[in-house]
């Protein structure tokens, strides 16, 4: 009996080992997009290679949890038949894990042919590293090979400059995912309940926030509301207080507003005033007191719970059907409304800093050495032309239809097969990486108007929020990507961030003397050298006079 058991266990383990070892081989065989047809495909106008070219592509997923397209994805067949390319598409994880994977492949000179730069900080720095190591190839010649894509995707000279080294372009800068998408919003129902107007200055902001905190704006008879909600995201106190710092013209770390006085914003006397306003808000107890330690998820849970009535938020995070539904259920009468920038004492009213977080794709030197440049350009041009709808939304007639204005519609489409159904997400994983370039039709398809389930409100994410946010006065901050961290890196960052927080939380009194001490502390950590280096880099790039 024991021998039988042993035999069974041995067979089971052996079969597992063999099956696991075979998995990859079988998969790779299966993934070849179809055997060549018995009948040769129609000859194309372009000269096709006799043998398909294999292109390896590493890119992040748009919807990470939905997984990759299946091996029998129709796009693989089309790319094979029409472009003469066997596409091997691998989804790489975002942020640190993806960066490590790429760096390990780079160290082994094993980078894929076409890949998305993944970084926890600044993708351009990684691109530069790969350039210095000779691992990537210039892509200047590719632009002429893909005219439509170049016109739609690579039309921003500033972005092209950012990915150029020694006069050659080394990266393909994909358009930022919906620019200027965050903004300043306020609970309109609370304003109405207290007969207040939206604030237009920092002083009015304080007044409204005090009223929201003390006058029971939700009318539930409990002292359970705050004026403002936020969490720290970005340098210093983060961009969730943009409406305060924008009123003083001191958004973010650097002064990109006044090119003649380019320096750290904390040098600007107005920064001191902005800090004083922040202290007034904190001392008045009108900010949800957990803001220094809240995570993004917790912050978002709290506005859905009606904890506060003034915030800075992403338009889709606020209005997207799944995000808005809990708020709608909790507060059927509630509504958020976008607010213009506050105007400061000197008349400044900047909305936010637009850094243009674009994505960069690069072509490995190995791919160039293997003569794959033309095939890669052919693939990218196809994605921007014939393959645009297939990779962005699926198959027309099956997953979407187009109306007379060229906008996507789901009329007559099986809901389970609709381009926005969860089941269809694996088929459009490349859409945010290589397909979309932010046309109105595209954005409308992604963020359509809808009626909320509980209150029956008509939500118009683009018209009401995104268009409003984008129309505000943003400071162009693309140049930030050129600036390398100071030599004292982490120490500088910690001192900068913690110092500001200490002032605001009252752990250190804000006076001209203590502020001067704080600035001197930054200087001791190399602030002046940091500013000089940043100025030099921006001057070299032609971004400063």
């Amino acid at each position, binding site marked *: 009996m024991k021998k039988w058991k042993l035999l069974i266990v041995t067979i089971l383990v052996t079969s597992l080992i063999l099956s696991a*070892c075979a998995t990859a081989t079988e998969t790779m065989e299966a993934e070849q997009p179809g055997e060549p047809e018995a009948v040769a495909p129609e000859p194309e106008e372009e000269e096709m290679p006799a043998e398909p070219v294999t292109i390896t592509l590493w890119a992040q997923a748009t919807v990470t949890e939905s997984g990759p397209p299946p091996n029998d994805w129709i796009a693989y067949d089309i790319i094979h038949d029409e472009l003469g390319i066997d596409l091997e598409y691998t989804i790489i994880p975002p942020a640190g894990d993806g960066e490590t994977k790429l760096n390990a492949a780079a160290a082994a000179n094993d980078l894929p042919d076409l890949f998305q730069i993944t970084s926890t900080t600044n993708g351009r720095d990684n691109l530069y590293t790969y350039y210095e190591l000779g691992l990537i190839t210039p892509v200047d010649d590719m632009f002429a090979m893909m005219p439509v894509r170049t016109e739609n995707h690579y039309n921003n000279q500033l972005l092209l400059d950012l990915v150029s080294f020694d006069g050659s372009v080394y990266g393909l800068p994909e358009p930022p995912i919906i620019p200027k998408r965050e903004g300043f919003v306020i609970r309109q129902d609370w304003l109405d309940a207290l007969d207040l107007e939206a604030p237009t200055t920092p002083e009015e902001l304080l007044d409204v926030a005090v009223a929201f905190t003390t006058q029971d704006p939700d009318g539930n008879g409990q002292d359970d509301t705050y004026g403002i909600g936020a969490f720290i995201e970005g340098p210093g106190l983060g961009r969730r207080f943009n409406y305060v710092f924008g009123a003083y013209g001191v958004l973010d770390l650097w002064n990109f507003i006044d090119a003649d006085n380019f320096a750290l914003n904390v040098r600007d006397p107005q920064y001191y005033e902005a800090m004083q306003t922040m202290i007034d808000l904190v001392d008045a107890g009108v900010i949800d007191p957990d803001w220094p330690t809240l995570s993004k998820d917790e912050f978002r849970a709290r506005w859905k*719970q009606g904890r506060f009535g003034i915030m800075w938020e992403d338009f889709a995070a606020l209005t997207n059907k799944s995000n808005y539904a809990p708020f709608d259920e909790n507060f059927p009468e509630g509504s958020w409304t976008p607010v213009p920038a506050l105007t400061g004492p000197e008349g400044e009213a900047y909305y936010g800093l637009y850094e243009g977080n674009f994505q960069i794709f690069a072509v490995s030197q190995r791919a160039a050495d293997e003569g794959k440049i033309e095939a890669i350009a052919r693939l990218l041009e196809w994605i921007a032309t014939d393959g645009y709808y297939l990779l962005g939304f699926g198959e027309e007639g099956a997953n979407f239809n187009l109306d007379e204005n060229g906008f996507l519609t789901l009329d007559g489409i099986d809901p389970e097969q609709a381009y926005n159904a969860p089941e269809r997400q694996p088929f459009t994983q490349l859409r945010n990486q290589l397909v979309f370039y932010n046309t109105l039709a595209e954005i409308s398809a992604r963020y359509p108007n809808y009626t909320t389930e509980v209150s029956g409100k008509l939500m118009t994410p683009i018209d009401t929020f995104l268009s409003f946010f984008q129309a505000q006065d943003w400071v162009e901050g693309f140049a930030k990507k050129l600036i390398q961290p100071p030599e004292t890196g982490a120490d500088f960052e910690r001192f900068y961030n913690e110092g500001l927080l200490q002032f605001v939380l009252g752990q250190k009194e804000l006076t001209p003397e203590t502020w001067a001490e704080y600035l001197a502390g930054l200087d001791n950590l190399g602030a002046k050298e940091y500013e000089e280096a940043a100025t030099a880099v921006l001057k070299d790039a032609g971004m400063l006079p």
Partner: protein
Amino acid sequence: MLRMRTRGGLAFQIGIAAFLLVALLIVLIPFWRVIVTAFVPLDVYTHEGVPFFLSPAKWSIEAFKQLMTHSQFPRALWNSIVITIMGVAISMTLTIPLAYGLSTRDLPGRKLIMGLILFTYLFSPGLIPVYLLITGMKLTNNYLAIILPPAVSVYNTLVMTSFFEELPVELKEAARLDGANELQVLWHVIIPLSKPILLTIGLFYAVYFWNQFFTPILYLNKNELLPLPVLLRNILISSSLNEYVEYNAFSTSAVESLKAAGVLITMIPMLLVYPWIQRYFTKGTLVGGVKE
């Protein structure tokens, strides 16, 4: 005097009990918090966050349902099971003979071999050399890339060696006198006497391979090969980046609940296995702690 000693002893016992109770709470409260978070329904979460106590009538398995009904869940679960079983099988197959060999005191070159093994314990080759080795061996997209590099744990080998060393030499000599070769001694004498250490080390390996997360990301480019921890992480990343997930990927459970449910799901198999081998586990982990 006796009475005082009794009172003092009682106070001491109460103090110890109080200390242990506090220590227990320090462990239990976060764990309890994770459990409640995993089961809190969305409407409660959106109204009041995660309460400390949740009425049993309100417990919801929605987060588990969302994770476990994911189209890739069965595949990822199977992948994790395969990696774990293969990993334990290969690791034990390599570790047992190595530990047995090292436990033989008259093994020629024993010190040198031990020194070489310890060298790998003290000095790690680092990520890039291992990556080069794996890709050089064409093991990308193969589970062996996940299993072979950590297949022999020096720590586990040393623990097992200590156990083998404590077994009576006379048993081995008796077997040899009966004509058994070394493999037969190992198979028929040593292994049957070593259940505690085999199960303990097996559990160590199983936990290690079950939790494999980083190396699959590094070496498995085919998404259908990825194990459960990677899938769960992908789901959680996506739900916390909700502003980019336009298509209502998650609409019936809070992000925090999904995270907590993910933690519990990955714990369950090990929680199920542990009670079965607990009696051996304690014995096994104490090996080498006492020298006679």
